[in-house]
């Protein structure tokens, strides 16, 4: 065991473990000091208020911590208390705020208080096994010695400067040397206005404890940043011992802490807390030392589990398979991770650094796998079922403009199990929950170091439900963001194809530079000895892009390999049925079309593989399909107004129109029959990529754009039909587009809509799908977006 700093006052000796909060290395030192007969204290003092210490002791004893017992604490439990103090630097701002609003501060929105005054109305104290202060209190109970909270009970949150200190893991090697090197460095994060008072109070209270005749050997555990000041104050005779210790006012409320909030107080990742909790060993014990945590082994083991889970048996050669790309990028990921540790002055990657590297270098799925492995707290997180009486403190839902990551000082809310009839009640199954309005949360003790900003793609299985039972749906539509993105990519494809058709006319320079000097022609001229300047003029070649964005050419997407032998399903998507009549301008013409051809207006034909629907989506989502390919005949049909405008604008010639009922056949047989009869196109559905293109050909004005895997060649039958109709087939390789866009387009959800015209969706859908229903809408041309709005 390392030598701890000692201060002798009178007949007593004070040993200290100045700590970096929430790091197991320091908790280990406390545990060793209490286990070792030579240093075992007869009293313990910690950097917390008396009430906080009393609340922790009471609760730990209720949970089963007692002398001589090894007890693995559930993770994560905590205590919360209300804050009343505003930082002295914010007093003027507080007065101005009261003047401007005409209200007292406690009547104002907590989010406003945070923004204007940096004030958190509630502070959270986690019972984290890896925090040295918590370990000290636990040891005091096990040793059955008194434990004193010597800090002020309440103080404003400090304004802390970021600091760089050596990785706390280095303290494992030589604790004394670590303290010597880092005590003064860590002082830089002190807020003299707040911490000066606290240190004075701590010194006076410590002197009081040391002056008690029954305490000859006291262990003090507090923040590293305070230690040098405390040493000075303890040695300063002008600082008199306090007359009494502060009373316990019992102002703390026990809570269950959501893992996403808890993990900031669980060392470099949650499993460390579990390991430490399990292996620490109650005090006193015969052998004071224990094997120290091998952090590097921890990280390596976890990363290997991530790699195995993500890659094993899952790497394919398909162009859209990001697993292969991730596999190839693994070396770069590790290189970047190592470099990030270097620039962040860390010996071992922590969870956030690993996630930052993954977020920047790898796919979303890899990040999810990483988060899931690193958050996998081996015994499982303490659940609301095990502690039904406790409110849960969890992260508050972010609004769309907020940064998605959480961090210390984060936005939180309290979730209570509640009686029926309470305001903003959420009901799911048998349980009822109420959520308080969101507020910003302070931490006790305050963490130091970098604030890492990275989203954590992980869901808690025990998450209290927030959804109401699904409403009765009027219609099932494709989830609008899918349509938005599908057509955004289709328009992008039309633009790429259009650009490729632009050419240049090159001529010798006479008077105008036109579109600039043509280097190649000029060079050729020079090599010929002619030495003339050649200029070029941009011209559009004979084939031009369809300029009508509201009635574009059809686009075919081939997502899977055409050789894909697994059979899929065929399906049609409809622009609408009879209800389109409510939105057309010329109702007579519409009724004539319906009478003569039918009311099934087909906007797309898809070839897909149905996927099993996730349980959480049921009731709101009807189906989830993995698309192998899809042909879209023209404009998106996000709602019926848009469908009506497209169909009417194209004089009902832009897509197949079939009778309402398939007349005993399947819809696809009916469609094949329609093409054969009307266009003399024979469609073999077995050859699915060819079929999709064939469906498009008769409705193309100039050409059919096909977005397909690189090296895709359309089958000969397609070329034959295209020639017959005088249309061109333009194949664009998928690598010209964003792979993430294409991946999103492979998964199509059919969701419930509250009205028949496709305007209103249940608000819960957005949180279930993780995106606004207007996602990707700005990527559509303005004319197409305008079609969505009903004319008044």
């Amino acid at each position, binding site marked *: 065991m390392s030598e701890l700093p000692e201060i002798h006052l009178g007949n007593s000796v004070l040993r200290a473990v100045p700590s970096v909060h929430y790091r197991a290395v320091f908790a280990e030192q406390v545990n060793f000091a209490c286990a070792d007969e030579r240093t075992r204290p007869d009293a313990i003092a910690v950097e917390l208020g008396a009430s906080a210490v009393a609340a922790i002791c009471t609760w730990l004893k209720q949970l089963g911590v007692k002398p001589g017992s090894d007890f693995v604490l559930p993770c994560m439990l905590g205590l919360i208390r209300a804050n009343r103090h505003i930082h002295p630097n914010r007093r003027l701002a507080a007065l101005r705020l009261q003047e401007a609003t005409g209200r007292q501060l406690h009547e104002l929105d907590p989010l406003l208080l945070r923004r204007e005054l940096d004030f958190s109305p509630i502070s959270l104290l986690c019972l984290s096994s890896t925090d040295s202060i918590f370990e000290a209190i636990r040891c005091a109970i096990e040793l059955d010695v008194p434990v004193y909270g010597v800090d002020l009970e309440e103080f404003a949150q400090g304004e802390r400067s*970021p600091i760089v200190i050596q990785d706390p893991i280095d303290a494992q090697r030589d604790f004394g040397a670590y303290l010597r090197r880092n005590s003064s460095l860590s002082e830089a994060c002190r807020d003299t206005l707040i911490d000066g008072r606290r240190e004075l109070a701590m010194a006076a209270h410590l002197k009081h404890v040391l002056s008690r005749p029954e305490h000859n050997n006291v262990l003090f555990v507090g923040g590293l940043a305070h230690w040098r000041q405390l040493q000075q104050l303890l040695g300063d005779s002008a600082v008199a011992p306090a007359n009494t210790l502060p009373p316990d006012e019992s102002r703390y409320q026990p809570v269950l802490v959501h893992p996403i909030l808890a993990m900031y107080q669980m060392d470099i990742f949650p499993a460390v807390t579990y390991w430490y909790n399990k292996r620490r060993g109650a005090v006193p014990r015969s052998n004071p030392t224990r094997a120290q945590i091998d952090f590097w082994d921890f990280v390596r083991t976890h990363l290997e589990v991530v790699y195995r889970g993500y890659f094993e048996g899952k790497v394919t050669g398909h162009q859209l398979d990001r697993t292969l*790309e991730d596999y190839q*990028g693994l*070396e*770069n990921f590790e*290189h*970047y991770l190592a*470099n*990030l540790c*270097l*620039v*962040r002055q860390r010996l071992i990657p922590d969870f956030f650094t690993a996630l*930052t*590297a993954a*977020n*920047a*270098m790898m796919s979303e799925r890899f990040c999810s796998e990483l988060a899931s492995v690193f958050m996998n707290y081996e015994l499982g997180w303490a659940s609301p079922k095990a502690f039904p009486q406790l409110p849960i403190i969890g992260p508050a839902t972010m*609004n*769309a*403009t*907020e*940064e998605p990551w959480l961090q210390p000082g984060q936005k939180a809310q309290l979730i209570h199990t509640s009686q029926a009839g309470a305001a903003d009640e959420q009901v799911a199954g048998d349980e009822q929950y109420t959520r308080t309005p969101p507020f910003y949360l302070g931490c006790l003790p305050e963490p130091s170091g*970098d*604030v*890492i*900003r990275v989203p954590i793609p992980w869901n808690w299985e025990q998450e209290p439900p927030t959804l109401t039972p699904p409403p009765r749906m009027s219609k099932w539509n494709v989830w609008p963001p899918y349509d938005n993105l599908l057509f*955004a990519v289709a328009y*992008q494809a039309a633009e*790429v194809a259009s*650009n*490729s058709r632009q050419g240049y006319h090159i001529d010798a320079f006479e008077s105008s530079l036109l579109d600039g000097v043509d*280097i190649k022609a*000029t*060079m050729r001229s*020079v090599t010929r000895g002619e*030495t003339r300047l050649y200029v070029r003029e941009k011209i559009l070649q004979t084939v031009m892009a369809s300029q009508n964005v509201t009635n574009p050419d059809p686009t075919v997407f081939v997502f899977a390999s055409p050789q894909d032998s697994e059979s899929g399903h065929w399906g049609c998507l409809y622009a609408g049925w009879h209800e389109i009549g409510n939105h057309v301008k010329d109702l007579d013409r519409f009724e004539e079309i319906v009478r003569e051809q039918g009311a099934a207006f087909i906007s797309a034909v898809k070839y897909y593989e149905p996927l099993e629907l996730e349980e959480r989506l049921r009731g709101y989502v009807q189906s989830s399909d993995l698309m192998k390919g899809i042909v879209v005949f023209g404009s998106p049909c996000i709602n019926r107004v848009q469908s009506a405008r497209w169909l009417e604008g194209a004089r009902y010639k832009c897509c197949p129109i079939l009778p309402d009922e398939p007349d005993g056949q399947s819809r696809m047989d009916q469609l094949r029959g329609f093409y054969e009869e009307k266009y003399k196109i024979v469609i073999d559905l077995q050859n699915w990529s060819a079929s999709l293109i064939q469906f498009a050909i008769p409705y193309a004005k100039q050409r059919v754009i096909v977005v397909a895997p690189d090296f895709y060649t359309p089958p000969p039958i397609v070329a034959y039909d295209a020639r017959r109709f005088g249309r061109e087939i333009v194949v664009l390789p*998928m*690598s*010209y*587009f*964003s*792979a*993430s*866009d294409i991946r999103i387009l492979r998964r199509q959800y059919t969701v419930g809509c509250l009205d028949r015209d496709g305007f209103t969706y249940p608000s819960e859908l957005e949180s279930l799908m993780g995106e606004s229903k207007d996602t990707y809408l*700005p*990527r559509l041309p303005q004319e197409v977006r305008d079609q969505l709005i009903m004319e008044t």
Partner: protein
Amino acid sequence: MGREQLEIGAGKKRAWSSDAYIPSPGSFGSFVGREEELKLLTAAWIAGKNALPLSPLLIGEPGVGKNRLVYEMARRTGRDLYIFQGHEDVTSEDLACSVRFSDNDSKIMDYVVSPLVTAMITGGICFIDEIGKIRPRALALLVSVLDERRYIDSILLSERVEAHRGFRFVAATNTGDINYLPEFIRSRLRPLIKIGYPKREEINSIIKRQFLSHADKLDELLRDFWDLWDKHSEDGREPSTRDVIHLFALATSLSDYDALGGNSTLKTADSKSPFPLEATKRLCSITSDHIRMAFTELFTGQID
């Protein structure tokens, strides 16, 4: 502002370099915040014995400070910065080399290597700004630069140019253009570094450094600005640094205009007593009214 062009070796040929970009000393001394992003970028560029530097892509809304971050990295790493501005008319050869008629009587043409190739030859930093605006086919030449080959083949030069050990690459795109970047390039641009809106305190610090002449009133003026912004932006969206700098620049101009006589002087001005267009010194103090007028002009689009 640029550094003098040099004649350099490009493969076996001689070519003229592109100009390095040297930001004005004033802006170089005033970088605020973004320490986390600087760390991410630094980590991408650290190369090891067996590890090549990575080619990061900065993604963010216009005006949040992507370019400024790269300038700062160039300053901190002490390397020359070569900027290639992306746009729709860039061709693949533009990325490598162009030619011009020579000023030297003994030669007809000179090769001029692009900022990218100059950086590759000299071991500088190449920054392609707005890479999402370059058409996919024009970007094909970049592929070999960004992977382990680290060379570029120029058709015009008929040469292969290998990258210097010290060469570093970074690109930036606006969030809206990221999806126009073809996958064969996007997959090689790693890590993706997202540049979010700066914190209010950072914006305040930047304004205080850039508008030193109003230092005595800036706290109050900034408060006025944030009050207006909070009322204007109901959804909690934050302004970009560029937005706020523009607003304070406009407010300063409005205050100068008032000091020069404002509308009444402009109406009566003629060639004998012209309206002065240069505010050569701090003429009057910027007020809350100027902030309000500038805000209305820039953000709400209604001005009295």
